[in-house]
């Protein structure tokens, strides 16, 4: 209950923000985000924040150590870093969600290793997503999510696109975080303040949104395509879309059921 280390992963996909973000502007989002962070630190002075921005080409830190004593100077640093983002040659590629998640995990791990005080901050990750899922990143993404589960780091997500994202929903479900796909994305700040301000301990005491039906689809290991029915290796649980004699990952041989 004593303080949280919040890592915000914000998707600044320029193509998405220009086209289908239901009339919202990336600057509006950042304005509202800064107010939220101000409130977050005002509520609990020990809270610390780091912000990672990611797009198609890169994932980088906007802010590394936002806390109550350095708030106003750091927000100007945020703007600087955002402006200097290299967004040349952004093609029709997917955003690097998995990379940003692994950056967040490394940052948290570094904090846990170097922090010497007894009462360490509780880590949490918040995704602000504005792009559709990329099935090709499913495997690295889900590996990071499993690591999150081991480190007990909840992954929250707010999805501003018009479609639900099964990958983020799965991540929140596994790590006991909260995934929301809001009906009124323009009320972004209110969603943040109502739901994502609340830390893990207090979540049991206040009414929180309950998870809806979760789509547990995976990607096949051979083509990285999204499938919901497939074949699973009994040894390593790798998922394949068609019948195979041998598992590519663990080398187990499969007995062909038709030949028996």
């Amino acid at each position, binding site marked *: 209950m004593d303080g949280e280390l919040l890592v915000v992963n914000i998707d600044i996909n320029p193509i998405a923000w220009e086209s289908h973000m239901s009339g919202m502007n990336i600057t509006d989002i950042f304005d509202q985000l800064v107010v939220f962070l101000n409130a977050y630190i005002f509520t609990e002075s020990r809270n610390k924040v780091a912000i990672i921005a990611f797009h198609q080409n890169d994932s980088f830190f906007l802010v590394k150590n936002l806390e109550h004593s350095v708030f106003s100077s750091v927000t100007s640093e945020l703007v600087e870093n955002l402006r200097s983002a290299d967004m040349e040659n952004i093609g029709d590629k997917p955003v690097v969600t998995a990379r940003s998640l692994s950056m967040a995990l490394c940052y948290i791990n570094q904090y846990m290793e170097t922090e010497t005080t007894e009462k360490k901050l509780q880590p949490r990750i918040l995704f602000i997503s504005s792009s559709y899922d990329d099935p090709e990143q499913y495997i690295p993404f889900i590996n990071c999510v499993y690591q999150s589960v081991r480190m007990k780091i909840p992954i929250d997500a707010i999805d501003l696109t018009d479609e639900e994202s099964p990958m983020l929903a799965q991540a929140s479900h596994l790590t006991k975080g909260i995934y929301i796909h809001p009906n009124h994305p323009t009320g972004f700040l209110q969603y943040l303040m109502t739901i994502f301000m609340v830390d893990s301990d207090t979540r049991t005491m*206040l009414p929180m949104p309950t998870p809806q039906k979760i789509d547990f689809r995976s990607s096949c290991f051979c083509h990285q395509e999204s499938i919901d029915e497939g074949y699973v290796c009994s040894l390593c649980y790798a998922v394949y879309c068609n019948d195979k004699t041998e598992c590519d990952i663990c080398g187990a041989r499969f007995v062909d059921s038709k030949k028996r």
Partner: protein
Amino acid sequence: MNTDFVSFLKVLNDEQRKSLYTFDQTNKAVFKMMDKKTKLVVMRLLHLEHIQYNPRLSKFVSIDDFGTLLSIGLLESVQLDQNEYLISLDSNFRTSILDHLYDVSQIDNVELGIDSGLLEEYYQEKWENIILYLMGEDIRIPSNVKDILVFAKIYDENGLTKEGVKYLLLNDTQKLWLLMKSYVELKFTTINPIEIMRILMEICYIPIGQKRCINNESEAYHKLYYQLSELGLIYIENDYFTSTPLALKLSYRKGVDDVSHTGFIVVESNYQVYAYTSSDAHFRILNMITTVELRLPNMIICKLTRQSIKNAIQVGLSCNEVIRYLESNLHTTMNSLSEIYEQVFDQLRLWEKERNRITYESGILYELQSEHIFNLIIECASDLNAILWCNYDKMMLFVKEEAHPKIRTFVRDMRNKNKS
């Protein structure tokens, strides 16, 4: 939320509280004093003008979340229907907090205007003197502080009262709030209580070491600042005041602000108590509840004994108060040894209960010769439910005092009947 603070706020009536919330600093200080859950509820309501609330259907908040806010007058609720309420935060409070959140250009680093060691010394000296004065030491303290102590029924012309003994065992936060409450009640007619509250809130909110000018306030309140400095809450130099660490204790919340709170008592399972302190006040208090064995410059070694607990009870303390005192001042290394001190505290309670083994009741003892009359009297007394003890062999009966006249008339009637 800090219960002492809430009871302090209850001194004001609703109207006064509403006008208290027109001050920015007060609102921010009150927000900081809330517990986590209440703060989050405030955050949920902050951007909304009002919400329509049905306790049975609500997914937004539950009714007891509102409890704290309602009790300090920050929530306005209008009943629309049977089970539908229109709830909104106090609008001045809302504006203060929103303005603070939307204004990102706050002052970041606080330059310390005054050496923190000086502040520590200052408040400790003032505060210790008050405690020692209460314990009967021949120390001079300012007369206005004496007035507060007398008004709070802690002290009177005979010295420490029974209430006062209990007061000594409270932790600093509770002591301070009680004094503040008495101060406000004492000065109710002369100084506007809202102003006192507002100034207090400002004192707990500003960072330690930051100087503020007294001349910003009107003349009438200068006296108030000087009186607060007599208590050790603020340090006044020239025309500036700064908050001392004692002011920080006003907003102390157990379990949350423990980072700065240092306990000094270690309790062992053989009832040995070690107190790492060099303060006279602590020594006197420990003397009341334990048998002090050794006093070193930085440590006091004492033992919790049956006799020492009995002494404490005789002075007017209860065992729970002693336990609470020890618990609240436990050193941080004792957090993981809860089983050991559970055993010790149970034994303290048992010693306290020993005093309750015997109860006293006054009555009349009858000694009779005739068995026949003895039986009749027993019948009469048992009808009146007055028998406390009887012995058939010795023909003795002990009845309650109130029943004596009735039994006497009964025996007289019986004798008259026999004669006639």
